[in-house]
């Protein structure tokens, strides 16, 4: 076997090995575009959502009253601008990783508060025994209270409100 052939084979094999690595990185790259990082810009609208998202499941609107809030907006704090659609599910807030909204806030407890619809479709906020409390209109929550759209709810440095 001539020296030249062996050299070509040696470099060729290295090239093929690196080609595999590069193709693998390309696969990862295309995977990145399949994922979605939620926009935190305040002016985000649903129709500006990235292309790859799944078609929206029809929300169970049957029990929502006319004029009921449709989304929860974080107006202050490190997550300001984040919106969450209200689709009849309970929203938990806190630093715990499995919360619906994971608060990155030193003053929030692990499981701080939850917001859920009652049987009439009225949204209720309930403090889950947090250390620093949940405030609605400057008053600290002691019992679950119904909240109207536009009422600021303060948890630590984070302020959220429901909007139509």
């Amino acid at each position: 076997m001539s020296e030249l052939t062996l050299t070509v084979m040696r470099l060729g094999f290295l090239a093929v090995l690196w080609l595999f690595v590069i193709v693998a990185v390309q696969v990862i790259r295309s995977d990145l575009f399949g994922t979605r990082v939620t926009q935190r810009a305040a002016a985000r609208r649903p129709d500006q959502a990235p292309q790859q998202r799944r078609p929206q499941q029809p929300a169970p609107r049957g029990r929502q009253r006319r004029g009921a809030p449709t989304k929860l907006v974080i107006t202050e704090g490190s997550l300001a601008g984040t919106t969450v659609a209200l689709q009849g599910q309970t929203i938990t807030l806190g630093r715990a990783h499995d919360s619906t909204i994971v608060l990155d806030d030193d003053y929030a407890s692990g499981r701080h508060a939850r917001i859920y619809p009652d049987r009439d479709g009225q949204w209720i906020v309930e403090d889950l025994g947090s250390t620093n409390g949940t405030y609605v209109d400057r008053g600290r929550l002691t019992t679950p209270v119904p909240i109207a759209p536009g009422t600021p709810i303060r948890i630590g440095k984070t302020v959220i409100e429901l909007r139509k």
Partner: protein
Amino acid sequence: MSSTSTTTVSTGGLPSRRNTELAMLVFAVVIPILAYANVGLAKDETIPAGMLGYGLGLGLMAGAAHLVVRRWAPYADPLMLPIATLLNGLGLVLIWRLDQEPEITTSALGGPMAADQLIWSTVGVALFLAVLIFLKDHRILQRYTYISMVVALILLASPIFIGESVNGARIWVQIPGVGSLQPGEFAKIVIAVFFAGYLMVKRDALALASRRVMGVYLPRGRDLGPILVIWAISLMILIFETDLGTSLLFFGIFVVMLYVATERTSWIIFGLLLSASGAVFVASTNAHVGQRVDNWLNPLALENDGVTETAQSMYAFGSGGLFGSGLGQGYSRLIGGIAAKSDYILATVGEELGLAGLMAVILLYALLIERGMRTALAARDPFGKLLAVGLSGIFAIQVFVVAGGVTGLIPLTGMTMPFLAQGGSSVIANWALIALLLRISDTARRPAPAPAPSPDAEQTQVVRV
């Protein structure tokens, strides 16, 4: 569902990527076949006779694995299986290539090993298939948290009682009719299951009950309990089995998972302090470990009127240079004994493929670990997250410890390079590990099911009469 993904990266309905996986798999089978041809042409100037058999064997394994993934884990990560196949294939070629050296393939050293390794790989892939088919959901493992602790401790302790000492390390168990088995390789997976289940329950207590002193969180005394117990067990492994690798892996993985579960840097500091003090203590009292440290500090010192294995592997890396000597044209047989095929197989990569090839192989490991961590990020349940971190952390620590040992960065520990090195237990256990990661990644990337229609909605429906 935009409601579930406000702050974290989420997988928004990924395509299943099975065809990408198939293409990558074909690529991953072709590369080892090329390597066979390369070795044969370089050594005997002919295409080796066994090439078709090995290529076919590897191809069948990959094909079966792909079909099962397609059927039972359709949303799993597209890269893990091809990378594992490629590493396994390259390992088979390198072992076969070292079998061609008569000096290290004497019957006293066990004869040629590539055929056995192919059989073990097949067993490994069979276990991979079994895990994917029979484990429908990784959360089932959560039920067996404390059982897996007991199983892991039995596996880890078994070589002390029924094992035998080989090359100074007491990590093998003889099974009549099958051969010797390294229970530690299987224990590492089981222990990750235990840590994930345990830390998921205890992480709040470990993370939150702490005082802040000089910028680090000091855990309470009683919360230090688990880490001290694990530390003591890993020291016992080190003392009674003189197995540096398993001990380091066992303790390292606990610290990694503890850090991920609690987000407290102080655990890493405690872990490093404990492992450093433990290592110094054992190195100064245990002769076998002390000798490994001596070899690391003075690799060029003569031992029994010859150079040490560490020195030989360094010479191999040096002679490989940037682009290597070419497959089949190196002298890594000089490392001597069976070690060239197992612990020091990376030296052969470094010599025959050079720095360029070695970096490609290490990048392959890095990509595999990245996919594992990525799976952990995408997983929705805390147990799955911790388990994925644990399994890919095992992989990462193992690669670091072996590669660091062979290149002289840290003392050699006698662990195997996953998939690449000769060794049945290792390849079987690593295939099972990949299967578990694929299972978690399938659950993580699977699109969320449509919400069930609420019964209230039907009650309040307006019926037109």
